[in-house]
């Protein structure tokens, strides 16, 4: 028996004794660190302990064991590493590195492992009782707030209305985020993965036309979630609400509208001459009109003057910059769709 074998045998006995004495305590408290000198009597025990702690090898460990067919894998590994002294960890890393340099490599389903590394995995598998290769299961995603979502949208649409349209029947979501993004992140709507794109600070995702049709055909709530597949994390973003489509509006000529839904409340319907009604931050006047649905190109028209208009699900708003020129009397307010040519009377603004 040479000095190293003697030390190893002795060290192993001492460690076993320690473990017996300290049974029930956290194993990490008694695991000799990998920084131990390789010539130390406890070095082999430290290697065993490290092998016992090795995770993520449920598949490759048993495969290495079968492939190599070595009686004592960890013993074989220990005898391969440099006995000249120095930390065990460095010796192990150096041995693996040299394996790659000399093409002493084991390939398992595309994984390239050093021969020594495969010995370690094989020994670890035995110590951990892993006899059959087992694929790692991703398991359930873990709920975690892994990124700050500053704003996102849209959060609602109306039955049959493509939300945030981007052409070709597609539409989608945008998220303004603060934090690192990576290519393994995906937005999911109701569990369906969306085509997801990244720009610094912005994540966008689009729904294929078929899926868009499916979603906007069914009023209800759809959860939007951000998934990071690389870390198996899931963060809820919010809910897209598909509102039931209100009844179609009746146009001035008595026909049923093909693009507008019924108008609900709107305002203001009365104002004082020369004063900005529903005054906006920039000093202009403004209208709001609850309308069940309206095409994105639609605009409000006051007295035949087109107003700068914003159409959102359920509401149309418009700025009236020429409020000061409105004279006393009734001023018709219409909602106009330039594509179909339909005109819907909202009501009349009375100037006093």
């Amino acid at each position: 028996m040479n000095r190293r074998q003697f030390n190893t045998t002795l060290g192993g006995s001492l460690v076993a004794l320690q473990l017996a004495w300290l049974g029930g305590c956290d194993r990490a408290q008694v695991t000799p660190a990998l920084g131990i000198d390789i010539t130390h009597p406890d070095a082999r025990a430290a290697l065993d302990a490290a092998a016992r702690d090795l995770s993520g090898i449920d598949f490759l460990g048993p495969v290495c064991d079968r492939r190599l067919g070595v009686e004592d894998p960890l013993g074989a590994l220990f005898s391969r590493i440099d006995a000249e002294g120095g930390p065990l960890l460095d010796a192990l890393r150096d041995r693996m590195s040299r394996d790659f340099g000399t093409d002493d490599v084991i390939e398992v389903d595309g994984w390239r492992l050093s021969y020594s590394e495969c010995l370690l995995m094989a020994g670890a598998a035995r110590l951990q009782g892993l006899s059959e290769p087992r694929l790692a299961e991703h398991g359930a995603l873990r709920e975690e707030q892994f990124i700050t979502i500053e704003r996102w949208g849209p959060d609602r649409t109306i039955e049959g209305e493509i939300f945030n349209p981007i052409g070709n029947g597609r539409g989608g979501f945008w998220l303004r985020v603060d934090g690192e993004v990576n290519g393994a992140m995906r937005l999911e709507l109701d569990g369906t993965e969306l085509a997801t794109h990244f720009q610094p600070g912005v994540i966008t995702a689009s729904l294929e036309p078929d899926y868009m049709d499916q979603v906007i055909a069914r009023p209800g709530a759809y959860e939007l979630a951000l998934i990071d597949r690389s870390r198996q994390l899931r963060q809820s973003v919010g809910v897209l609400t598909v509102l039931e489509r209100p009844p179609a509006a009746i146009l001035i000529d008595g026909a049923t509208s093909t693009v507008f839904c019924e108008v609900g409340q709107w305002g203001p319907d009365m104002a004082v001459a020369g004063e900005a009604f529903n005054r906006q931050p920039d000093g202009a006047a403004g209208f709001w009109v609850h309308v069940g649905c309206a095409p994105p190109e639609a605009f409000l028209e006051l007295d035949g003057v087109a107003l700068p208009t914003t159409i959102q699900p359920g509401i149309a708003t418009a700025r009236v910059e020429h409020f000061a020129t409105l004279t006393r009397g009734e001023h018709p307010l219409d909602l106009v769709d330039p594509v179909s040519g339909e005109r819907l009377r909202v009501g009349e603004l009375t100037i006093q």
Partner: protein
Amino acid sequence: MISDALADLPPLLEAEVCVAGGGPAGMVLAMELAERGRSVLLLEGGGTDSPGEGQSIYQGQVSGRDYPLLGSRLRWLGGTSNHWGGWVKPFDPIDFEDKSHFPMPGWPIGLDELAPWYRRASMWCELESDDFAIDSLEPSERARLLPLPEGSGFENRLFRFSPPTRFGRRYRDDLARNPAIDCRLNLNAVALNQNADRVTGLVASTVTGQRCEVRANHFVLAMGGIENARFLLNQAQVPGNQADWVGRCFMEHYGYSPGGLLSSSELAYERGALPGRDVMLVLASGRELVQEHGLRNSCLLLNADEPDPLLGPAYWSSALHSGGPAGMRRIGMINEPLPHPQSRLTLIDERDQLGMRRVNLNWHLPPSEFEPVLALFRRWSDMVSAAGLGRVRQTRFEPTAMDAHVGIGYHHMGTTRMSGSPDFGVVDADARCWDRDNLYLAGSSVFAHAGYSNPTLTIVALAARLAEHLNGRLESSA
């Protein structure tokens, strides 16, 4: 000034320089020349928006490996910048060099010659910075890259991103306001009037058949990596074809996804990984691998991926390895193409609406072209493993078959290559046709070698440089 030739077209147009093609190269060239006080006629075959049916002028046929001749090109003001992803990086020094294992010589100019023009191009492409050195990152940011050992053969390299600049939209008003620029939309160059060593005029046409003659001191073709060659080949006397190189050496950056890397999850290679910076890091071949080992200047992209079912991230998190959080990265490669003479454009009998013969592209990218890619990947894999930086799983071992999909960048390059001798190219170091004193080519068709870097920045840099050259010639001839 911008006008529509379909609405108004005089029989004769004149300028000091006529630029045919309103993509990034043509637009930047026109604006750079105008800034120097030169009058420029800029011809754009399309309008200001998608031309619908007009796009079919780009229809052609392919042999060899499949290629989307139509979908990869856009035919309106701004050209292919209208679908540009915005990736930006200058070529590496090695990209300009001769390589003994390449079938054709390298560029007759080096990176030093282009460096000031890359800075100028960075402005046109609206970049945050024109510094592409890894040292431009903070030490804490560099610490999130793989610490490549001395002599590893690989280097970390940095891409930046343009917004991306849609040149047509971004600079349309500048063209319109500039009195030195006469930009004619829907007007296509169809023929050159030439004598033995000069172009004496150019014939331009609308798709409806209205024609005009163009006179200029100098003519520049900036129609795109395929159209430049197609236009030349359509001429009765083909300029620059003294050695039969027009249309040859078509190149395209091609992709390959060989596997994945298990390493520290702190690595910050992909876009968005470094907060506050719009950059992407890649691992690229060092000079020695290319020149001494006969490999290509390809790059590897590392993007976060889901855990591998055979070897979990916990393995790399163990004290034996990183001791920190670990994760999988999907590896993608962008590969340097060879300028292969068989990879070429030729004309077919069928003609387009302008009467120009359509093109056949034989993209010569046989499976053997993937062997150096695989060899490079294996070398990288061994380096990373030996250095203890991670473990690699190779999931593809075979070259991509001829009938299989291969990822491409829509980068059409090399068909009117620049060369140091008329025996090996179409244009000289100034981008002037070897046998026509006043005919120049702009755009990626002049690329001699192409590395892995996206072409737009180099296209724009060359255009800015060409403006300086043309201005010098016009000054000296005044």
